[in-house]
């Protein structure tokens, strides 16, 4: 209906993913920008943030973010959609990564590996993680709320211990082992027909390995996000939302709680497994400590900062959580340059930046510093922890909530409602 975006005449119209022409056009433009982003094109380089995200240093981080998004989508299905607090999401990521390295890794004297191609190990990572999720569900479904949080927290520690019991899979101690590369082979032949981990040549373009990985991950993220969004509109999604809102009421209305909670665990673990496998093989070598409580909290933080229960919130939160490190570093770096300069403002920056012992500043730029002037990495962690608190206190809907407020302001402008 032209000019009446809130008027729906059918159920199909209301449940459309992109109901208005504006949204469809924006989606198209957004996808185009995402596809062109890694290339050094004049048009793309005019867009504010996208301008530098395409640089190869940043593109690596963008790839990490895309992998993170897949995991966060999984937690979104479990916590955002089904309302189950899980602190064990990183455990499933670890399960996925270990499955990947067992199925796709190379065997040696004290390491196991079957050397399968990626089209085997990537789905296997997801499926095995999902199966373990199903196996854990009977315990997890019995407990509610914070009890569930603590039980899933236990999973993380049990998982870390299992990685010590099976060093043949997870790799020895603190080092980890080599994960299979991101590359497509038909079977175990020598040369992969599509290699994402080496620079190459497509048609008449030179593409770097990060660009290749970017396109592969972008495709994967779009597929998985599409699946996650669509799931919210199906019978399963509605059942999960009903359980989140009031589990007993849902059960009385005929929603089998056990079955759907198990489904939620399976789906979320599937996403986590894929994400873990991709992360490990993207980084190349990962110690088992990677799958710690901190990683689980990061997933939850992404959901909370982005906005609970929204797929768009998952994207915003993941962008923030993964990128904030780099942004803080950049800002500190910039502030340091300002502090070194001359003029009135440089003393302002000098007040915050400490450039060695005896210089009274809050943030240290010396790499080795561990002590009162905070290293930039610690500053970033503090900002991240504080933001979780601030968002929960002042904007429980996260960045999505801010977006809604901004949108509604302009919708009603110049009136306040």
């Amino acid at each position, binding site marked *: 209906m032209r000019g009446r975006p809130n008027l729906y005449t059918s159920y199909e119209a209301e449940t459309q993913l992109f109901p208005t022409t504006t949204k469809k056009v924006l989606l198209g433009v957004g996808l185009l920008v995402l596809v062109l982003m890694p290339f050094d094109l004049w048009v793309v380089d005019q867009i504010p943030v996208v301008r530098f995200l395409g640089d190869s240093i940043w593109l690596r981080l963008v790839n990490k973010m895309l992998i993170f998004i897949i995991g966060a989508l999984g937690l979104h299905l479990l916590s955002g959609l089904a309302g189950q607090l899980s602190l064990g999401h990183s455990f499933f990521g670890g399960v996925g990564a270990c499955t990947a390295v067992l199925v796709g890794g190379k065997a040696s004297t004290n390491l196991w590996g079957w050397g399968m191609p990626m089209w085997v190990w990537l789905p296997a990572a997801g499926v095995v993680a999902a199966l373990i999720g199903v196996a854990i569900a009977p*315990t997890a479904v019995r*407990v*509610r709320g*914070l009890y569930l*949080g603590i039980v899933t927290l236990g999973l993380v*520690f*049990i998982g870390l211990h299992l990685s010590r019991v099976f060093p043949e899979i997870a790799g020895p101690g603190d080092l980890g082992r080599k994960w299979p590369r991101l590359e497509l082979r038909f079977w175990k032949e020598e040369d992969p027909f599509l290699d994402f981990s080496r620079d190459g040549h497509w048609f008449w373009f030179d593409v770097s390995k990060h660009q290749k990985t970017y396109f592969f991950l972008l495709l994967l993220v779009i597929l998985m996000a599409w699946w996650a969004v669509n799931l919210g509109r199906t019978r399963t999604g509605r059942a999960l939302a009903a359980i989140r809102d009031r589990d007993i009421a849902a059960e009385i209305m005929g929603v089998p709680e056990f079955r759907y909670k198990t489904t939620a665990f399976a789906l979320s673990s599937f996403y986590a497994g894929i994400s873990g496998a991709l992360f490990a093989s993207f980084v190349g070598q990962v110690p088992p400590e990677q799958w710690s409580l901190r990683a689980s909290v990061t997933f939850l933080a992404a959901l909370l900062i982005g906005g609970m229960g929204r797929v768009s919130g998952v994207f915003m939160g993941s962008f923030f959580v993964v990128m904030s490190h780099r942004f803080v570093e950049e800002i500190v770096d910039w502030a340091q340059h300002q502090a070194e300069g001359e003029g009135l403002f440089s003393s302002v920056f000098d007040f915050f930046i400490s450039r060695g012992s005896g210089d009274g500043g809050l943030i240290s730029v010396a790499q080795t510093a561990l002590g009162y002037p905070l290293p930039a990495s610690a500053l970033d962690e*503090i900002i991240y922890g504080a933001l979780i*608190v601030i968002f929960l206190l002042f904007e429980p809907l996260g960045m999505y909530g801010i977006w809604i407020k901004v949108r509604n302001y302009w919708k009603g402008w110049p009136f306040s409602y």
Partner: protein
Amino acid sequence: MSLLPVVLAANAVDTFVQTFFRGAALGSLYALLALSFVLVFKASQTVNFAEGAMALAGTWFLSMVFVDWDIPGRWLGGPTWIHWCLAVVLAAGMTAVIGLVVERVAIRPLIGQPHFSMAMVTLGIEVVITIVAVDAVHLTPRVLAVPWGADTFKIGGAFVAWSYLAAMVMAGAAFLGTWRFFKTRAGVAMRATAFDQEAALAQGINVGRVFAIAWGLGAALAALSGIFASMAPWGPAGVVSRDGAFFVFRALPAVVLGGLDSVVGALVGGLIIGFAEVFAGQYLADHASLLGYGYQQVVPYVVMLIGLLIRPYGIFGTKEVRRV
């Protein structure tokens, strides 16, 4: 944790006695921590995941007050251990202030919000406090100067560390104190608040103050257990380290096993977990190659999972009545 997994004593009886004391002491520590979780949960219906950070802060305060500034010792004569005990009280008090601030700033605005949000807020606070404690203040070379150090005494042929006895006395005092506290006016107010927040409010109970008391006490208990967890047989010989914060997560199974809202449950759960961990570490050591190095640290979680399968709300936990 540099926790020697196996006791080497002359005969089986001595081994058992020694293991028993170790289990009881570790159980007391877990019970102490569980008590602090339970107090916070009773008042504000949330699990305080920042407890580890508070334990860390408590040990750091003690090290600062006693070792760096020599606070009570400057004005007081007398034996050192009295100074140390006073410094412990002071450190616990300082940590209690952190608890109060956290409660006032971050928890009270969230009353009425889902419990999920409160738990996440405490996780955020945990990140902030831990990073400040680890990165902003030098943690690694700090010592606690525990008066009894790693000294032991002998019962028959079994060696028992003084720290074990101290932990048991501490936990006993804490539980006795809590039991007495629940008989006082403020304690009754807290029990009423735990039972029904709105009804308590309608009776004229200052729920905000109950929150403050619970968080202050919780933080102080966290500090105490953090200090004990950094002592010689458990921690790396009385040195403040980040392990203090991780120790707390190993106490969570004790809380859940006993029931999140039961003080008796905290004691029983803590002792069960402590005994299970130590006895498994002692008597299954022959199978360590099969179970994996450090398997005793996973025992609490396994016991918790089994316990929850049988009783989803813990042994003494109140079964939540759920209404549609």
